[in-house]
């Protein structure tokens, strides 16, 4: 029995692709094969048109593992410097990049603190900075918000949207549906090693046989008039106030509080 079969994903710049699937569906195995950490038992694998173990391919990819654990005795500057040296990035450029990335992930003020004293969220952010050290074309993220509290998740998601705006192609593996819905443009569903569904999120989630109309009535009279119109002209209608999800509500409150402070 094959763990993964015939998966073909195409990306364009500035897009987040969410790879969904229950535990054991093959998401992490898929990522590890793309990274050359696992070899396929049969067949061939190409990433960005080349084999994954090719060092040129690897220099075009960024990777954030699930629950990254870096060297606890190093501080963020030392960790980033170490990984930058694995790309042979010259010292002058390294210095500039380090500053940029620490600013991007909001850890510049903690640049001298050892990673051993970091929270999970901070480690995840340093992981994201490490994955961006080579300015990759393709970013592979394995459960980037797992184990984080909602505020930590929000920070990571905002970072992903920033990266998307910068034109990065991102493959996000997750089993957290809300996270994927919030951040991704397209999704694929992996089940028992097969990509059983793939498409643009807005298209996939659309209920083709139903319509949604959002109206803001000017006053009570206007509201009554609109309700009357629909009741007269259609039989199957459900009218209610639109409701935001708890997640949307929570994030809105957090953002408002951040703006106040």
């Amino acid at each position: 029995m094959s763990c993964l079969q015939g998966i073909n994903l195409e990306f364009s710049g500035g897009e987040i692709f969410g790879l969904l699937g229950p535990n054991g569906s093959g998401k992490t195995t898929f990522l590890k094969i793309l990274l050359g950490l696992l070899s396929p038992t049969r067949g061939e694998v190409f990433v960005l048109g080349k084999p994954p173990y090719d060092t040129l391919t690897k220099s075009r990819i960024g990777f954030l593992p699930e629950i990254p654990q870096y060297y606890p005795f190093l501080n963020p500057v030392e960790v980033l410097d170490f990984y930058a040296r694995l790309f042979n990035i010259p010292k002058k450029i390294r210095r500039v990049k380090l500053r940029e990335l620490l600013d991007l992930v909001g850890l510049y003020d903690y640049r001298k603190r050892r990673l051993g004293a970091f929270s999970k969220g901070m480690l995840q952010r340093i992981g994201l900075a490490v994955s961006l050290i080579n300015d990759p074309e393709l970013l592979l993220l394995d459960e980037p918000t797992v184990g984080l509290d909602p505020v930590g998740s929000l920070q990571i998601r905002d970072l992903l949207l920033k990266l998307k705006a910068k034109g990065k192609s991102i493959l996000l593996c997750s089993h957290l549906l809300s996270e994927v819905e919030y951040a991704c443009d397209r999704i694929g569903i992996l089940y028992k090693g097969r990509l059983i569904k793939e498409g643009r999120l807005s298209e996939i989630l659309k209920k083709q046989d139903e319509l949604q109309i959002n109206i803001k009535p000017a006053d009570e009279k206007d509201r009554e008039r609109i309700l009357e119109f629909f009741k007269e002209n259609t039989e199957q209608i459900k009218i209610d106030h639109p409701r935001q999800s708890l997640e949307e509500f929570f994030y809105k409150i957090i953002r408002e509080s951040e703006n106040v402070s």
Partner: protein
Amino acid sequence: MFLKVWALANNTFKEGIRRRILYVFLIASVAIILSSHFFNFLAPSEELKITLDMGLASILFFGALIAIFSCGELIPREIERQTIATILSKPVKRSEFLLGKFLGGVLLVFLNFLLMSVVFLFLVYFKEKFISLNLIKALILTFWELVVLSSIAICLSTLSSTPAFNVTVTFSIYVVGHLTDYLIHIARQTENLFVSLFILIIYTILPNFNNFNLRDKVVEGFFIPNLEVVKVSLYGLVYAVIMLGLSHFFFKDKEF
């Protein structure tokens, strides 16, 4: 390639010097080297011999423990922490990773060896106001023995990711490697063909650590030819390269 290997070696070294167990070994060895000064009462006329014997023996023994404990755990720790995935997903060849880890481990062993040697040479100079070339030659070969042991520890750690197993097996090889002369004697004496064959195989595969041992010659003041030092150093280098080659063979298709 060299920059990446150096980055890995440097990081390995930085991590290694933070391990407390290595300090314990270092302090114990320095304590034993210095205490040799107080054992002179056992043979007042053999003062220098006792110092030389105890000093060289403790540098080798504690250097071996440092090599086994530091190098045997380098790769398993990277696997356990999954930092190996973050490194090998970068444009780093597996051979570069192995070489970087090995060089970092050897650098760590070298630093400890240097500290122990400086204390030892200081003590000898304090007693004799002279340091013989023989002593330096003996120390050079002791270091080569530690390099070979480090390469064996790295090789085993590419096979097994259990540090306790690697440490135990490498230590056993260290012990048996010092008994190879006895092994060949037993192989010749025994009448059982299988036992004899088994011992001969062990004798052929394992390094002969007695080659690196110049302690008796130094203590007795025999002349040690330069050619012998060069030959044994080459033997150590070749053995370490073979061990690294084997490590690469075991490591190249390993999945993480």
